[in-house]
C-alpha cells in the first residue's frame, strides 16, 4: 500500500523572477513591486517576449532579479531607451520600471513626451517620495514638511516647490490611455496594484497607447522610520498628497464586459 502523500504546489517564485536575494532594505516596496510585475508577466505569458528598462536609482540592479531581457538606461532616460527598443520590436513587450527621481525629475521630459507620443510601453512608477539609492535626498515627490538630507528643515513650498503629481500631468496627454495609482502597503492595495499592472500590460498588447501604474512605496531606511511606521505613513500621510485610485482610463475595457 502506497503511503506517498500527494503535494500540490500552491505558491512559488514566478518564472519572471530569478532565484537571487535582493539588495533592497527590509520593509522596502521594491520587492513587492518586482513580484507583482513578475506574476503579471507569467500569468500573461509575456516573459520570453519582454524587454525591460530599469532606472538609475534603487532598482538599477533589477536585471539581477528579473528573469527577462533588460537594458540599462542613463538616469531618467528609460522611456527614451524603451522607445528605441519598442520601435525596433513592435511585436515585443516593453516595460520600464522607474523611481520618482528617474521618472519625475531628471527624466520628466522623456516621460512626458514618450507618454504623449502614445508609445506602446507600460511604465511602472515607484513613488517613495525620496532619493533612496543616494541616501535620502529630496525627491520631486517629497511631501511638504517631509525631511530629506537636502531639505533638513522639511520640504518648504516657497523654497523647494510643491510635490509633483506627474501621474495626473501625464493623464492629460493624448497618447495616454491608462493611469492608476495604488499603494504597496495593504493587502487590498497590493491586489489592486496587480490588477492595474495587468491592465497596463493589456493596453500595450492591444496597441492602445501609453499606460502607467504609480505605486506608493515605503522607504523605511531613508524616511528613518521603523517598517510598520513607514507603511502606516504611506497609508495615512502619503495618500493625502497622492490620492489612490484611477486617474485616467480610456481603454473601454470595462464597457466591453
Amino acid at each position, binding site marked *: 500500500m502506497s503511503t506517498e502523500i500527494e503535494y500540490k504546489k500552491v505558491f512559488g517564485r514566478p518564472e519572471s523572477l530569478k532565484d537571487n536575494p535582493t539588495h533592497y532594505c527590509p520593509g522596502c516596496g521594491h520587492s513587492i513591486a518586482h513580484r507583482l510585475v513578475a506574476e503579471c508577466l507569467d500569468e500573461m505569458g509575456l516573459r520570453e517576449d519582454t524587454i525591460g528598462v530599469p532606472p538609475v536609482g534603487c532598482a538599477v540592479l533589477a536585471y539581477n532579479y528579473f528573469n527577462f531581457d*533588460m537594458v540599462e538606461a542613463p538616469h531618467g*532616460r528609460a522611456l*527614451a531607451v524603451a522607445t*528605441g527598443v519598442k520601435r525596433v520590436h513592435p511585436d515585443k513587450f516593453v516595460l520600464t520600471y522607474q523611481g520618482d527621481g528617474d521618472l519625475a525629475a531628471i527624466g520628466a521630459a522623456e516621460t512626458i*513626451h514618450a507618454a504623449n507620443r502614445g508609445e506602446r510601453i507600460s511604465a511602472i512608477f515607484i513613488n517613495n517620495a525620496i532619493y533612496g539609492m543616494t541616501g535620502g535626498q529630496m525627491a520631486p515627490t517629497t511631501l511638504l514638511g517631509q525631511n530629506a538630507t537636502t531639505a533638513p528643515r522639511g520640504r518648504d513650498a516657497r523654497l523647494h516647490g510643491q510635490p509633483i503629481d506627474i501621474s495626473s500631468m501625464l493623464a492629460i496627454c493624448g497618447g495616454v490611455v491608462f493611469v492608476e495609482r495604488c499603494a504597496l502597503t495593504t493587502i487590498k492595495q497590493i491586489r489592486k496594484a496587480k490588477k492595474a499592472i495587468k491592465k497596463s500590460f493589456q493596453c500595450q498588447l492591444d496597441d492602445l497607447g501609453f499606460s502607467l501604474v504609480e505605486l506608493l512605496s515605503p522607504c523605511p531606511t531613508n524616511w528613518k522610520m521603523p517598517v510598520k511606521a513607514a507603511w502606516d505613513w504611506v497609508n495615512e500621510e502619503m495618500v493625502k498628497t497622492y490620492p489612490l485610485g484611477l486617474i485616467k482610463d480610456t481603454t473601454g475595457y470595462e464597457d466591453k464586459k
Partner: protein
Amino acid sequence: MPSEKMLMNGSQTVGEAAVRAGCRYYFGYPITPQNELPEYLSARMPEVGGTFIQGESEVASINMVLGASVAGARTMTSSSSPGISLKQEGISYMAGMELPAVIVNMMRGGPGLGNIAPSAADYFQATRGGAHGDYRTPVLAPAGGQELVDLTFEAFDLADKYRNPVMLLGDGLMGQVMEPVVFPDFIDLKDLPEKDWALRGCKGREARAIFSMILGQQGELYRHNLDLQKKYDRITAEEQRWETKYAEDAELIVVAYGTAARIAESAIEDLKAEGINAGLFRPISLWPFPLPALRELSKEIPKVAVFELCLGQMVEDVILSVGERAEIYFHGVPGGLIPTPAEVAEFLRSTVKGDGKVGRRMEV
C-alpha cells in the same frame, strides 16, 4: 544597382547613404546647420519601412538610438556642435555597453551657442572621448561629396564590427553644399552579420541584460576597461585612414582634414605655379589618428604646415606624430569664417620662408 549621379547637399547625402547602408531607425532633434538631414529622413524612412522620430531633445534622441541599437538595429542620430555636447552622456553609455551606432556631427562655431557657420572646433570632443570615462569612438572625417556616401557606409560597418559608436564628423559647409554623388545599391538587411548579443526577448535562451554599471568587488570594472582598451588598440592598429596628394618631392607637407583640406588643396595647387612644391596629408580617421603614416612622411620633409578651422586641436596629434623630425607651423581660423585658398596660400608661403607673417611655429 547603384544610383544615377545625383546632385544633393551633404546632409541629404548622408541621409540617403544611411538608408542604403541599412539604417532604418533615425532619432534626432533640430539644430542648424544640419536640419536637411532629419528633414530628408522624415520623408525617406517611411518609404523604406523605417522609423523617423523627432525626439524632444538631443538627450532623448541619443537614448532612443541606444534602445534601437540594443534591439539589434542599425541606427543613427545627427546634430551640430551644441547638440552633440548634449548627446555625450548617451555616447559614453553606449561605449560602456558596447553598442553600435552612427552619430553625425555637422560642426558649427562655438563655444556655447556660438554661431551656425562651419567650424572644426569639436576635434578634441570627438577624438578624446567627449564624455566621462575611459573610452574611444572612431571618428571619420569626410571632405564632402562622394566621400560622405562612402564614409557613411564605413561608419555603420565599423560600428557593427567593433560594437562601438562611430562618429561621422563634417561641418556646416559640407552639410549644405550640393555636390554630385553616386549611391551604392541598398544593403540587403539579411546580409548583415547576425547580432547574437542583441535583446529580442529570451525565448529559447537565458535572459540577459546589457549595462554599463559594473560594481563588483573583484576588479570587474578594471577588467572591463582593459577589455575595451584591447578593442581600441585593435581599432588603432587596423582602422587608420588617410590620403596623401602631391607628397612626392614636396618641400612642405600640409596637414588638414575635412573642409579645411579642400581649401588647402586649392592653395597647394595655386602654389605650384610659383614653384612651391607642397604636399597634402589628409587624415580621414581622426581617431585613430594616422600617426605612423604622418611620422614616416615627416622623416623626408623638413616642414609641416597644419591648417584647421579652429585655433589648434588636431595640431596636437600632428605634434605627437612628427615630434622634432620637422618644423611644425600652424594656422587656424575660428568662429565659422571660411578662409579662401589665397589666405591659406599666404600661410604656406610664410611657412616656406619661415617669416612668421601668417601662422606660428609650434613649440615641440
